[in-house]
């Protein structure tokens, strides 16, 4: 298992049933949790990178899933945070009004390959049969983490 997939199996931050009423609020909340990781060296810069990227082009990969990401000097390794937003979810753009799952990824600036591996691992995870529905339905953090680990191993 490559390093980004390992990070996905054991994310640096996890929030279940996040209460948020906007894209920015959801991003800020997950970012605040992720910023606690020692791998995040400059939290404001990381947030700036995430928001800037989200402004440039859509970051949604499925009707209920968003993948905000940034390649930035603010992190010293790949960091991944996952949030499940409480129903009905938040709108990220006109085509994605009810995002429920947010996978936040930060990758060091130089690591293009790791960035692509991380994003590919997440899209693969969500394609795995039953994983997305399972993540949305998981009752406990342990159950959620177990599903992440199972999906990442595939």
């Amino acid at each position, binding site marked *: 298992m490559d390093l980004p997939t390992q990070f996905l199996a054991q994310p640096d931050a996890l929030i279940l049933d996040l209460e948020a009423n906007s894209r920015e609020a959801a991003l800020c909340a997950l970012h605040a949790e992720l910023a606690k990781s020692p791998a995040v060296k400059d939290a404001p810069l990381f947030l700036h990178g995430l928001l800037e990227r989200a402004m440039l082009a859509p970051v949604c*990969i499925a009707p209920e899933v968003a993948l905000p990401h940034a390649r930035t000097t603010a992190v010293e390794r790949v960091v991944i945070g996952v949030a499940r937003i409480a129903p009905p979810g938040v709108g990220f753009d006109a085509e994605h009004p009810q995002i429920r799952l947010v996978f936040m990824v930060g990758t060091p*600036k130089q690591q293009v390959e790791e960035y*692509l591996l991380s*994003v590919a691992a997440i899209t693969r995870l969500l394609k795995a049969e039953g994983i997305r529905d399972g993540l949305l339905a998981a009752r406990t953090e342990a159950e959620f983490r177990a599903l992440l680990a199972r999906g990442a191993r595939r």
Partner: protein
Amino acid sequence: MNGTRVTDPAALLLQRLQRLLRWRLWIQERIQLTEWQVTLLWAALAGFLGSLTSLIFSAFAEGVHEVLTGSSAGVVESMRHLPWWGCLLVPTLGGAAAGLVLLYGERLTRAQSSTDYMEAIAIGNGRIPVRASLVKSTAALFSIGSGGSIGREGPMVQLAAVVASILGRWRQFTGPQLRLLVACGAAAGIASAYNAPIAGSFFVAEIILGSIAMESLGPLAVSAVVATLTIRVLTSAQVMYRVPSFQLNSAWEMGPYVVLGLVTGSLAPMFLRSLKQAEEFFLALRLPIVARLALGGLAVGIMAVNVPEVCGNGYSVVVQILNGPVIWKVLLGVFACKWLATMASFGSGAPGGVFTPSLFMGASAGYLFGAAVHAVWPAGAANPGAFALVGMGAFLAAASRAPVMAIIMLFEMTLSYDIILPLMLCSVIAYYTAKGIAGHSLYSESLKRKTAAEPDPELAAGRVQDLMKANPPVIAPSARFAAIAEMFLSVRVNNLYVCDADGRFLGAVSLHDIKPYLGQPDLAELVIARDIMREDFPRIGPQQSLGEALGRFLGVPAERLPVVDPVAGRLLGSLSKGDLLLVLVEKRKKPEPAV
């Protein structure tokens, strides 16, 4: 079974692009055509086309000869059968016709620069004026077809180089690439003319490019081989000079060969000087060009009445000398007359080459020397024909100042390996002797003069901006994966430059970075150029020296680097590693400008 069927046209297009890109990568990874390999392919095409032009020129020259003399035999044979007035009339008419072509051709080519292929390769930009070259070659048809004492290889090489120049311009080659392709054309011309691919390559490498670095020699060799193969397939061309088996009978024979090296090394500068003096003499007459060329033809014709061997490039006489025996007194007369006839043709400005006449001079001088040695010391020169062969190489080495080419050419033209030891020794001695006597060669003088007059801007400045290619393919930072894939398919690059709306360079997207993910459409919908571009992609400034630019390429697998304005950060163009290496190789061998 997964029966999901994609119906969205955009998704279908993306899938198709990804599939095509995967195919491109699959092919690229197996064939791996680098810029150098592509250059070899173009060199092969230049060789093929160059050989065809050589064949066409030869056919036309023979046609003109037949019309003027009424004979399809060789030049010397035809002149031998003409009445005395015919011998006078044909070269005179041919000279006048060549002059008329040049005179009226000038009107078509007034604004065009020098047609010299050597200049175009060595110090120019590789652009040879087409019309001017055609005019000159047409004029050469008359001077050669009428029996002028001049070689046909010059126009053949010129035409092959012109075709290569047209090819390179059509493909919008950069300056160094174009010069290399023209050099390939010239190599093809020589290889076609002498059925000598190695010598063709080395002639251009040693004399014109001044380097046998593989960056240039590789394409030259490919071009020359293709040209020779084409000639051999389309004609019955065989070894140019069939010679009896020569051998070194004793080590003592090396002594006379050493002296022959000194003799030919002294004769060659005299021959070159005499050609120059003849040129000055004819120019001093201040005759119109038609009259001047007619006068040169008449001079050849006067000698041809009694010595028809003076006509043409001397090929048939060389064959006779090599296959001997020849009466030395007769040969001495032919040698003297041929020297004068070449002075008349060359001096009057008859278009053509003096390469083959130089071979005649060397063969005659060698035979005469061998015959003289044989007369006083038979064991020292058992076969004067062998001395003729060695003399050819030595004279060529001395006149062209390219001993390696001369040795190889002699070997290729005769396929006589037995003579290689004296040939090598004699050629080297002749080369150093000639070099000690006069500082210029058959070719270097005009190149030096032109270098002083028109320094090559690319080489003079030696800056990146002189060599860069403008308008490289770029993409916006927000470009989606589909657009990136489409761009990679439409342009043959491995790195796409990412620029913002103001043209500022942001980084580069590498084809190999995205390669493993081409089968993931979900990823393709998410990723944009900015996500995967490498901001630290090496770049160079327009004012940086070529040496600094080479340093930037070290350790970078890229074939091209972006040229970026260091102040505004704008992308100005791209620099090819191939172009850079070619120019640096060329720069190493440039003659110092005349003071």
